[in-house]
């Protein structure tokens, strides 16, 4: 158990460094798309450690406890994440539902401390984040439900093995792949579904009252949650990976595609997001589920 | 109703009704009418009934050499696009004028603005005496011509002193 936990912490650290460097490279890629140089690839690390080195402000014990619970919850989720089919901290226990619900602990912790800061902008940002989660999470769960039923197991490593034999779910379940990629944009909080950060309207939503080390810790949380979401997507739809290199390539491609796509469009209003997901994406997901399971 | 009354006809119509001191056509879409103090209220009421629903602005001009203020009401008609300036002159020292909030309720804040920057008192609009933009102003109304801004600035805000390092040729002469 102790060894597992240490390995888990290692994976969380690896996830953090991987995601930060991929995000840094992505900032360069986006800069080059806009014909400018863009920051060095390690800019994300600089931002985070700059945040940690500053002396911020606290609004009370719930403000701090919420941040600690949020980042702790996210690190705990990352500890369960298998990198490739044989590198995983707790083999056999990487159950899909743990990821969904432990992410919810992170979201709840940040929501609690954001509304504990007493700023109405933060409460509105948290309300929007939860409403948006209510929109993009349900289709994703329905699709993953079909995957679990088809593969007969909800452990990511075995799903990877299943895709190894009979094809990635990207090809066997095209509708599911479309739904999951749009939900991935929602999870990452990328541009079309950036309603809860919304720098123009809500002054960066829940993050409005965070400065100094709270900001740094929450950036770490954001990086690790991106790592979890993207590697979930890679394991479920792109057949995971047997070697580290394969994993890194797939990871980089998925994140860059999502990032570039997000720079193309503006920001939805929050009720448009809910209507969009419940009018188009959920029926697609249910159609895919019925097609695969009931045929 | 479009352009039913061109600006010249409007001036003639107003002249027929009220004692217009002088009227000139500023632009084809704007006319200016000077009226006596007493007529201002009725002219505005009449023009409002004719469709000039919007009071664009109420400003004040400080003619310090004649010792008079000139109140200017600019109103606008959305159906017949002509701005009308109704102008009247009031005494500068104890400037008082009846409020027109009964005709244009929106004038409440304009009157407050004119009071703050010129010191004109509007009877019938008690709110006009409160401050609007200038927070914590402690001097005479700043837009009056006899207000010396530079003196106020030197008095209130610290200056940066410059030591003259070198003198040009003219200075030495």
């Amino acid at each position, binding site marked *: 158990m102790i060894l597992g936990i240490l390995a888990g912490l290692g994976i969380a650290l690896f996830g953090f460094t991987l995601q930060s460097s991929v995000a840094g490279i992505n*900032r360069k890629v986006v*800069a080059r798309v*806009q*014909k*400018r*140089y*863009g*920051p*060095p690839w390690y*800019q994300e690390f*600089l*931002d985070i*450690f*700059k945040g940690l*080195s*500053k*002396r*911020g*402000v606290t609004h009370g014990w719930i403000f701090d406890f919420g941040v600690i619970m949020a980042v702790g919850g996210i690190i705990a989720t990352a500890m369960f994440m298998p990198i490739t089919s044989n590198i995983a901290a707790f083999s056999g226990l990487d159950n899909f539902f743990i990821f969904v619900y432990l992410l919810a602990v992170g979201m709840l912790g940040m929501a609690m401390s954001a509304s504990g800061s007493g700023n109405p902008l933060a409460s509105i940002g948290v309300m929007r984040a939860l409403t948006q989660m209510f929109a993009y999470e349900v289709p994703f769960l329905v699709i993953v439900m079909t995957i679990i039923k088809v593969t007969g197991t909800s452990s990511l490593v075995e799903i990877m093995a299943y895709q190894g034999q009979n094809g990635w779910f990207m090809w066997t379940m095209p509708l599911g792949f479309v739904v999951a990629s749009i939900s991935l944009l929602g999870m990452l909080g990328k541009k079309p579904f950036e309603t809860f950060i919304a*720098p123009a309207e809500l*002054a*960066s939503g829940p*993050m*409005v*009252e*965070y*400065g*100094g080390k709270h*900001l740094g810790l929450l950036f770490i949380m954001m990086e690790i949650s991106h790592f979890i979401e993207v590697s979930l997507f890679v394991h479920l739809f792109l057949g995971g990976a047997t070697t580290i290199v394969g994993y890194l390539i797939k990871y980089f491609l998925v994140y860059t595609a999502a990032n570039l796509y997000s720079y193309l469009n503006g920001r939805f209003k929050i009720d448009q997001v809910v209507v969009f997901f419940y009018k188009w994406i959920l029926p697609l997901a249910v159609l895919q589920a019925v097609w695969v399971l009931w045929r | 109703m479009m352009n039913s009354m061109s600006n010249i006809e409007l001036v003639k119509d107003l002249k027929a009704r009220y004692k217009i001191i002088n009227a000139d056509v500023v632009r084809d879409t704007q006319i200016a009418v000077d009226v006596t103090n007493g007529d201002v209220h009725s002219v505005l009421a009449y023009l409002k009934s004719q469709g000039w629903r919007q009071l664009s602005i109420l400003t004040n001009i400080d003619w310090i050499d004649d010792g008079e203020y000139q109140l200017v009401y600019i109103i606008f008609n959305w159906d017949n696009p002509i701005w009308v300036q109704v102008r009247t002159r009031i005494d500068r020292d104890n400037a008082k004028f009846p409020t027109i909030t009964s005709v244009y309720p929106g004038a409440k804040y304009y009157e407050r603005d004119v009071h703050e920057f010129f010191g004109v008192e509007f009877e019938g609009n008690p709110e006009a005496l*409160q*401050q609007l933009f200038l*927070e*914590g102003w*402690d*001097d005479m109304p*700043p837009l009056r011509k006899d*207000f010396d*801004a*530079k003196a*106020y*600035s030197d008095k*209130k*805000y*610290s*200056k*940066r002193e*410059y030591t003259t390092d070198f003198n040009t040729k003219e200075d030495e002469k």
Partner: protein
Amino acid sequence: MEEIRIKNAFPTQETAEQRGTWTELGDYFRRQSIWMLMYCTGCCAIELPQAMTTVYDMERLGMGPMATPRQADVLLITGYLSLKTLRRLIYSYEQMSEPKYIAAFGPCVLNGGIYHDSHAVLNRLDDYLPVDVYVGGCMPNPESVMNGFVDLMNLIKDGKATGWKRYRDNHEWYRANQIAAVGEVFVHDEFHE
């Protein structure tokens, strides 16, 4: 008011040992990723978008706009500083997380510039808020804006960008100046109750 005036506008330079390895390391990170508070007080702010575009690319230096004072490092005072803006600026500056810097653009901040004789514009910002970097030019062009930021980065490296320490240590002096100029900083009136 003169007696507690700060001896020299420029802070004494702390040697590396005085600052210790932690602050040295911290300065390295703080220098590489400066976030600016998007508070465009005056007309010089129009030059900032150019500094972000392809030709000058402020992001190369790791700089970027941030929405709230809590998250920002540098407060850009761009152009003339009117009475009412100073009150909001003081409130925002005090909300920023330390260490924080101020970059002042244009001549209006130094001696009031073309508004030196106006009743509403302050003539010398340095008495009210500690300024670290001045950028010259009545509307400085993007190159000088970028130079200003590079100067700020070098100041941080040498440990000279200690305006926030000066503000913290001489808080009464700054507050006295502010009240002398502005009257009441945290204003109470019908619009704010």
